[in-house]
């Protein structure tokens, strides 16, 4: 089993984390710069201590993440992270220009020497307000954009695209990806619709801010559809994301973690948007079940459900083993408790040196 470190590039100054969009009147340029530097330090640390991947992602109008364009952060990472793969999980492709996404991914693959992992996501509900895209079109836009991006990577001749949502008269991207036929692609596998699409298109899946039991059910569906389609996804085709913090002892790790503010999911930070998006059919057939992913829970429950990995290296390893055994995921994408200063760096070091070597044997 492999590990990735996910930093959202959180704004480290005082700012509300329960409202979207967040007003800029509390924003400090100095704090933002320090936040970026801290993020790069954490990524650098993960690379140094053996993490297999580093992860960046797209979110808008929030202190939760200062990477509205994760491609820019990934570009910086190509120069800072020397060994680990760089996973962009991902751009929210239904709200973006897919040709631009194909071009930027190709640039990153070249700049990183073929270390790009290309996530393509639908994003959280609020993202659709950002660029004024109707969420009811999300799934269809996603599918078309993904096919277009893949075609842009592999087609040797200039070509036009006559889509349902996208139209281009000629496309011929430069540079082109290093990895052949193209970088590995991952998408969210949380809903049955998504899992089916991924399986039929031989794409890896990822789970973020869900629970192991929910992910387990979704992985079974993904694998069943893949098997029916004639292939058997290896463990590396499944990414599971959990928050993590490791310290010398369980007591220290729990104490550190309790200093962090409670997380309110971006989806739940604006009730009107949440309701309006839900009404568009954005969540597919499992609306009620999907809303459970972000339900507020006590820390003990979150650990039990595999949402948080916390404790000493021994404890953390046991929790990781459970996730591996119950889910069969090959990649654990660990969300760093970013605001703990040196304790964050120590957590990354402890995980990399004490947990990761034994985790590889799982």
């Amino acid at each position, binding site marked *: 089993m492999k590990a990735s470190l996910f930093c959202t590039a959180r704004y480290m100054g005082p700012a509300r984390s329960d409202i979207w969009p967040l007003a800029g009147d509390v924003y400090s340029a100095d704090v933002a710069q320090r936040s970026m530097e801290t993020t790069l330090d954490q990524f650098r640390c993960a690379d140094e201590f053996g993490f297999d991947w580093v992860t960046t992602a797209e979110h808008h109008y929030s202190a939760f993440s200062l990477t509205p364009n994760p491609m820019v952060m990934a570009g910086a990472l190509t120069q800072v992270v020397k060994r680990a793969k760089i996973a962009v999980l991902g751009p929210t492709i239904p709200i973006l220009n897919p040709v631009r996404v194909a071009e930027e991914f190709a640039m990153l693959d070249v700049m990183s020497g073929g270390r790009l992992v290309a996530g393509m996501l639908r994003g959280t509900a609020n993202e659709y307000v950002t660029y004024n895209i109707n969420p009811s079109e999300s799934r269809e836009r996603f599918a078309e954009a993904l*096919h277009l991006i893949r*075609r842009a990577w592999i*087609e040797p*001749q*200039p070509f*036009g695209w*006559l*889509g349902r949502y996208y139209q281009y*008269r*000629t496309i011929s991207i430069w540079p082109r990806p290093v990895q052949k036929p193209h970088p590995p692609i991952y998408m969210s596998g949380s809903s049955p619709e998504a899992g089916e699409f991924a399986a039929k298109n031989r794409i890896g899946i990822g789970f973020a801010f869900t629970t192991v039991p929910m992910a387990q059910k979704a992985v079974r569906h993904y694998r069943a559809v893949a098997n029916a389609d004639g292939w058997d996804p290896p463990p590396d085709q499944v990414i599971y994301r959990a928050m993590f913090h490791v310290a010398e002892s369980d007591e220290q790790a729990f104490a550190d973690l309790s200093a962090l503010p409670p997380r309110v999911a971006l989806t739940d930070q604006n009730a009107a948007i949440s309701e309006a998006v839900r009404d568009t059919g954005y969540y597919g057939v499992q609306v009620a079940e999907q809303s459970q992913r972000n339900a507020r829970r006590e820390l003990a429950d979150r650990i039990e459900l595999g949402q948080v990995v916390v404790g000493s290296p021994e404890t953390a390893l046991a929790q990781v083993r459970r996730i591996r055994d119950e889910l069969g995921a090959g990649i654990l994408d660990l969300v760093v408790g970013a605001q703990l200063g040196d304790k964050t760096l120590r957590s990354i070091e402890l995980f990399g040196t004490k947990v990761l070597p034994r985790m590889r044997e799982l």
Partner: protein
Amino acid sequence: MSAEFAARRVATEGGALAYAEAGKGEAIIVIGDSATPAPAHALLATDRRVIVLAPCDAETTPQSYARRIATALETMGLARFDVMGQGAGSEAALWLGLARPAATGAIVLAAPTALTGRDMGLEGRLGDMKRPVLALFGTNDRTAPPEEGGRYRTLLPDCHLMFVYESGHDIAADRPEALAFIAREFFERRDLFLVSRASGLAFP
């Protein structure tokens, strides 16, 4: 929107040539896998004269069929026309463009099988094509797969390649609005169709 096609015949040396016709304006000659007009043809017939020919029969080569079509079009008094070749009809469409470059405006190929068809001599002649060609391939087409598209672009001196998302082999039926839209654009503007004229203005 929909146009009524009328069944007609025109005499040629090789016998009467059956076709279906609708609309007024500059002519589009459709050579396809079927003599039955598709929804895309009806859309084109709203402002163009659309002539849908019967497919080439098994006893006739696409090259000689193209010669018969050229004669028939002269008989019909058509000195200028655009050509749409669909599926196996793309062979005769390309031969027609090669045989009558002065009369042919532009050529649209929809899911062409011209390079995998029975006319092996066509490939060697494509470099002589004087007319602009737009080659369309459905992303779900297994008969004329998208991977074939690059060959047309390489062999034809002025060929634009375009993929039609979520279309199978019968683009005229699967994505009629899309096919009619892009064919109209290409016939009207030829190579200039690369530059969009669609307005991005949200509000004046």
